[in-house]
């Protein structure tokens, strides 16, 4: 009798389990964000956690890379391209109850454009002359000059709407208007968020989402296999993908990202201030072999700071074909003795750690001894990115269409070219789409010619997820893991 009861109870439990579809999601990420304020830091991981989940902007970029309305339901542009009139969605509230209206837009944009702004993409806001509020639900943004990509730019994770009340504390307690509310952040492990019941848009199907940080490829593989991670959108162990492909429990998502993986060189430091040395390094690296070895073949070679999936791409992979003999000759010409040592900083992602070993072996072939220094992400951001204290490093720039970084006065690899700057200025001010595309091509060619960094490959999106998950993005047109539309099939 007891046994029968037990069996019935057990059966009932099982049925209950089956009837109730899962409504939580755990997403794996390689890098942990240094903080959670997307308007105050360059690390993509910040936006990979928060974009579209916690924070939203006036516009957004969808999974195809197209600009869509977000907190602005519609807009109109004056014929001269200088005035943008945004119609805002009414009744939107921040997670802390602050109502969203035009004053928020004014605050957010003025804060980003201010001289003391710490926004990592300040240049996006630079064209803004003023933001005015004719009524609470209308925002009028005036530009100094026509800016072709303005709506796209305002969809970046760096251009999200921030409430004045929480602006100072967003780094540790992010407050936005998005479909999920921040719950807690266990440093070194995970960020948790829960559904926002007062969300203005469609309610997400997921009740709670956790972002878990695992850099080690082996540990990431184990976590996905064990079901501790439901989705790992940028999976660090591409070699294990075949194993997941053949396992019906998992779905593999192969796509593209905006990641331009480069061997960044400190152009202010010897010997990288010599263009012959930079070109020699470009000749010394066999990109195809690098992709095969470090990324199990996922990824496409690039010849400039631009990915093949973006408009106006020019194939410049033939500018520096793999040619160790030519590399040696150039190094000799530049007076670099065989056995010269350089240091390559390797942040945690496997493209860098593994790529570093492959590149070191390739450089060895042309007589350059590369000392590999693995460093943690926070240290990379501080030492390499902020203080520019490095020889060389391997990193993937995941921001979309970020040719502007080569035109900045101060950027970590210290490339300074007046010609490039002038060219970029021309591009920014161009209104005609055809001229724009032409200038994008010229910019890419100028970079390939100067080779400030060795352009390696476009980072592929190699993702693994539970086969029952629906609504994950196949491509990453910007660094983001938007999970509002994700759900579990029964």
């Amino acid at each position, binding site marked *: 009798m007891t046994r029968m009861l037990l069996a019935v109870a057990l059966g009932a439990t099982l049925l209950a389990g089956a009837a109730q579809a899962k409504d939580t999601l755990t997403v794996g990420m390689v890098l942990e964000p240094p903080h959670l304020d997307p308007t105050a830091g360059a690390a993509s991981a910040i936006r990979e956690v928060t974009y579209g989940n916690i924070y939203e902007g006036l516009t957004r970029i969808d999974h195809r890379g197209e600009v869509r309305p977000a907190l602005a339901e519609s807009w109109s542009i004056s014929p001269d391209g200088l005035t943008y009139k945004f119609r805002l969605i009414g009744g939107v509230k921040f997670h802390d109850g602050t109502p969203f209206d035009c004053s928020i837009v004014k605050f957010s944009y003025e804060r980003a454009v201010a001289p003391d702004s710490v926004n990592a993409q300040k240049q996006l806001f630079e064209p803004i002359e003023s933001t005015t509020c004719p009524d609470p639900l209308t925002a009028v943004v005036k530009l100094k000059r026509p800016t072709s990509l303005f709506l796209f730019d305002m969809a970046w994770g760096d251009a999200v709407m921030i409430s004045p009340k929480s602006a100072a504390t967003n780094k540790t307690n992010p407050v936005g208007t998005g479909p999920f509310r921040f719950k807690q952040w266990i440093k070194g492990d995970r960020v948790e968020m829960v559904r926002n019941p007062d969300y203005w848009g469609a309610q997400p199907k997921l009740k709670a989402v956790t972002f878990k940080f695992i850099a080690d490829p082996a540990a990431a593989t184990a976590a996905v296999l064990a079901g501790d991670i439901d989705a790992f959108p940028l999976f660090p162990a591409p070699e294990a993908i075949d194993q997941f492909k053949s396992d019906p429990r998992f779905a593999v998502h192969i796509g593209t990202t905006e990641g331009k993986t480069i061997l960044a060189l400190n152009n202010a430091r010897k010997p990288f201030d010599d263009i012959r040395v930079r070109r020699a390094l470009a000749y010394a690296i066999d990109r195809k072999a690098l992709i095969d070895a470090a990324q199990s073949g996922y990824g496409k070679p690039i010849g400039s700071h631009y990915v093949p999936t973006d408009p106006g791409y020019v194939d410049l992979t033939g500018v520096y074909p793999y040619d160790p003999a030519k590399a040696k000759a150039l190094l000799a010409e530049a007076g670099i003795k065989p056995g010269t040592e350089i240091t390559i900083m390797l942040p945690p992602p496997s493209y860098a750690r593994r790529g570093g070993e*492959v590149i070191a072996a390739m450089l060895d072939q042309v007589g350059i001894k590369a000392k590999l220094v693995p460093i943690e992400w926070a240290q990379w951001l501080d030492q390499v990115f902020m203080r520019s204290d490095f020889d060389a490093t391997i990193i993937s720039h995941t921001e979309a269409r970020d040719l502007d970084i080569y035109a900045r006065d101060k950027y970590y690899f210290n490339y300074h070219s007046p010609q490039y700057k002038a060219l970029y200025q021309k591009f920014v001010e161009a209104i005609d789409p055809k001229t724009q595309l032409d200038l994008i091509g010229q910019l890419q060619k100028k970079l390939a010619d100067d080779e400030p960094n060795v352009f390696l490959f476009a980072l592929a999106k190699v993702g693994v997820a539970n086969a029952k998950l629906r609504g994950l993005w196949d491509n990453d047109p910007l660094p983001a893991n938007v999970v509002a539309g994700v759900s579990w099939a029964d």
Partner: protein
Amino acid sequence: MRGAWRSRNLLAGGAITALMVLIALVSLVWTPYGPTQIDIVHRLATPSAAHPLGTDLFGRDELSMLMAGAQSSLSVALIAVIVGAGIGVPIGAFAAARGGVPDDLVMRACDLAFAFPALLTAVMITALAGPGAINAMLAIGIFNIPVFARITRGAARGVWGREFILAARAAGRHDTAITVLHVLPNIAAVLLVQATIQFALAIVADAGLSYVGLGTQPPQPSWGRMLNDAQTFIWRAPLLAVFPGLAITFAVLGLNLLGDGLQDLLDPRVRRAR
């Protein structure tokens, strides 16, 4: 019969250890391929005449890497043991010679050190001081210090009570001289055995540290990192995980057998006890 068994331990352990040392020494001057030489076209190759143990994810020759790995593993372990013994033995000998309060202080300090799990201490030290072979040597060496201090002190205390020490003291010899001339030679056997055991533990510790990325840094090969690299390839190239695993197993087995054999051969107390 028992004697034969004892010498078999010694012989087997000695042979394996000698082989490891030989491989490590040879790797300094010759390996079939450069241990860091990549050959991406032939990556993840199965064993063949060209690559007897196959190639790894970058097409590096597995045999060459194992040989170079033996060299880095053995040198990390050797230095670690030298550091541990070099500091631990004098401390232990000092405690034994003085007795009383200094002895108590030293031994309680050792107890304190033993309270920390050895490998975790090493992980902590390398995490703080930065990863790398030298820091790994020091980290492993540091947790060897109390081991040597305690064993030295225990064995030396036994010697200090013996008649010839009393005679030396009566003859006016200084404690330091007695320690160096009479005590240490008498406990050398115990220390040698302990050193062999610590050597084996140090190899495991080094493999553990480099497995989690805190030991020997790339591109210099190390057994622990070879294991880590092989882990995600386990379905495509399972042998990549097997070979470094076997190397660690054999190195540790050899040293432990050697330690056992030495103990039986050298330590008269154990021999009498049996």
